[in-house]
């Protein structure tokens, strides 16, 4: 379990993380979403003590990370696939990391197998592809068989097989009761992997909820309807939270009701409906809506030198 309490990080005048509080629960995959420069990596770095907070505190399994007797047993972190000496082999890198905790070489071999690094384990890391670097980072994170796994952009640079592998891995770790906290810029990937989402924008938490409720809450059900008497249909559907947009004389989009309800009302009102299409709201749409407001809210205050908050898409 990771508990973040009013955590802030300031670099001079710029506030990278602004009093964020959230809890990452064990037993599920928690996704950490946010545009570039939103403070995701900084927050993750503060969790493992690489950056010291300007204010607030963060604990892992009840204690600040550095105060654990065996930190690598508590938290395995992939923060940066490049956190490796390029002239050292993957095997020696993992052996050196394992040695700090007295983790046996057999475990080093296990994680090499687990991450599919076997064929390149004795090669120098400098020649690794981005995907191999990611696998090595994940191998290092799993060395201590940790309670909590933190992965910053784990699928970055992975091929489709690797992406699927990370998804299975994250879900598998969570199903064993571990705390899994991962960030990704692939919203669709998040939808497939995460059970819970923490959305951050401009250093502030925008949303912290189960993934389904974020999708439901942000994008209400929407249907596209072609009907011969749109006004009659709309009149009968009118109610709380229902809005509509007439696109063509007989084509409209109705928000706030599902397709079945439209069909029921149409049947009762004897309106001819010749198209009825539920429009899916993807997590990506929901995410864009969430961060859009955050971006708009902030762009009214001119802050020179701030990175433009665009959805991550490297």
């Amino acid at each position, binding site marked *: 379990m990771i508990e973040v309490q009013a955590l802030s990080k300031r670099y001079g005048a710029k506030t990278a993380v602004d009093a964020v509080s959230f809890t990452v629960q064990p037993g599920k995959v928690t996704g950490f979403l946010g545009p570039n420069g939103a403070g995701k990596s900084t927050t993750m770095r503060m969790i493992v*003590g690489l950056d010291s907070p300007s204010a607030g505190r963060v604990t892992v399994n009840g204690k600040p990370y550095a105060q654990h007797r065996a930190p690598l047993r508590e938290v395995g972190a992939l923060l940066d696939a490049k956190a490796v000496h390029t002239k050292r082999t993957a095997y020696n890198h993992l052996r050196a990391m394992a040695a*700090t905790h007295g983790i046996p070489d057999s475990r080093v071999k296990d994680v090499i197998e687990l991450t*599919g690094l076997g064929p390149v384990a004795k090669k120098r890391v400098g020649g690794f592809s981005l995907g191999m670097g990611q696998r090595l980072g994940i191998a290092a994170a799993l060395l201590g068989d940790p309670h909590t796994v933190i992965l910053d952009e784990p699928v970055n640079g992975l091929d489709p097989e690797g992406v699927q592998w990370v998804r299975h891995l994250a879900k598998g770790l969570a199903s064993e009761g571990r705390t899994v906290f991962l960030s990704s810029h692939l919203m669709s990937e998040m939808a497939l992997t995460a059970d819970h989402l923490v959305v951050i924008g401009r250093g502030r938490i925008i949303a912290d909820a189960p993934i389904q409720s974020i999708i439901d809450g942000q994008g209400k059900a929407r249907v596209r309807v072609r009907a011969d008497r749109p006004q009659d249909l709309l009149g009968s559907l009118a109610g709380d939270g229902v809005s509509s947009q007439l696109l063509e004389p007989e084509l409209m989009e109705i928000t706030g009701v599902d397709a079945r309800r439209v069909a029921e009302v149409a049947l009762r009102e004897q309106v001819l409906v010749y198209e009825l299409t539920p429009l899916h709201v993807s997590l990506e749409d929901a995410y864009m809506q969430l961060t859009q407001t955050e971006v708009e809210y902030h762009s009214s205050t001119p802050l020179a030198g701030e990175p433009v908050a665009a959805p991550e898409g490297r």
Partner: protein
Amino acid sequence: MATSTQNAPAQQRPRQNRDDGTGLNFGRVLRSEWIKVTTVPSTVILLACTVVVMVGLAALFAWAMATSAEAIAGSEVPAEFQAPTEGPNSIAGQALTTPSAGLLFGQLLIASLAVVLIASEWATGMIRSTMVAVPKRIPALVAKTVIVALIAFVVGLASALVSYLVAQPILRGQDLDFALTQDGVLASVINTGTFLALVAVISISLGTLLRNTAGGVVTAVGVFFVLPLIVQLISGLADWIPKAARFLPGDAGTQLVMVTTVDGDLTQWEGGLVMTAWALGLLVVALVVTKKRDV
């Protein structure tokens, strides 16, 4: 897609008894740093260069001593103009310093190695892995310093011993050869290692503070090589300059390997203590800064 990695999570061991004795302690961090130091190619290359350079220079020095002794013996210079035949400035006296003759360049190689070993962690990003594994940070840095200083000591000692052995046949022709048991010789050989160990500690501290390989190497070379040269050039300007210069880390440390010291200079002990003070002072600054700065 039924690849081997696909089923990976299922192979994860269930979390049962986790108190299996794993955990951080200083001995383990030392072992980790030993693995790190010995698994990068720069260590082997620079250490081999250090031995070759130090032994080679010592052999050249011995040859130069033997040649001058021969020239003097063959000339008919009046006694009052002849070089002294005894004491530290005599050829026989100078020949005693043969084991540490290559130190001037050996120190630069060791300084470079020490800077490279720590600064490359920042350059490659490795430092983040190190600091995540050892989040209290200071044990990791102290362990690396201990390992590198130890390696520098052993290499210095070995180079001096080999230099001694290589030089004896060259010196023997002019009866300049000497025994390790002669006054101050063994101490000088051992302190060649001590000096290089202190050079390593200072260089690691500089590399830690600068977090940059090139900057660290340039600064270390500046401290041990350029600074004494500059001081020599300007030492005529004021009386206090040469007096103060005795306390520079390089100058003070050089006294360590002297077989005999001149009145007015620091003794071997004093020189060693002054250089140790520099090394520990810089190390403490490096530790405090590393503890506080973000990685």
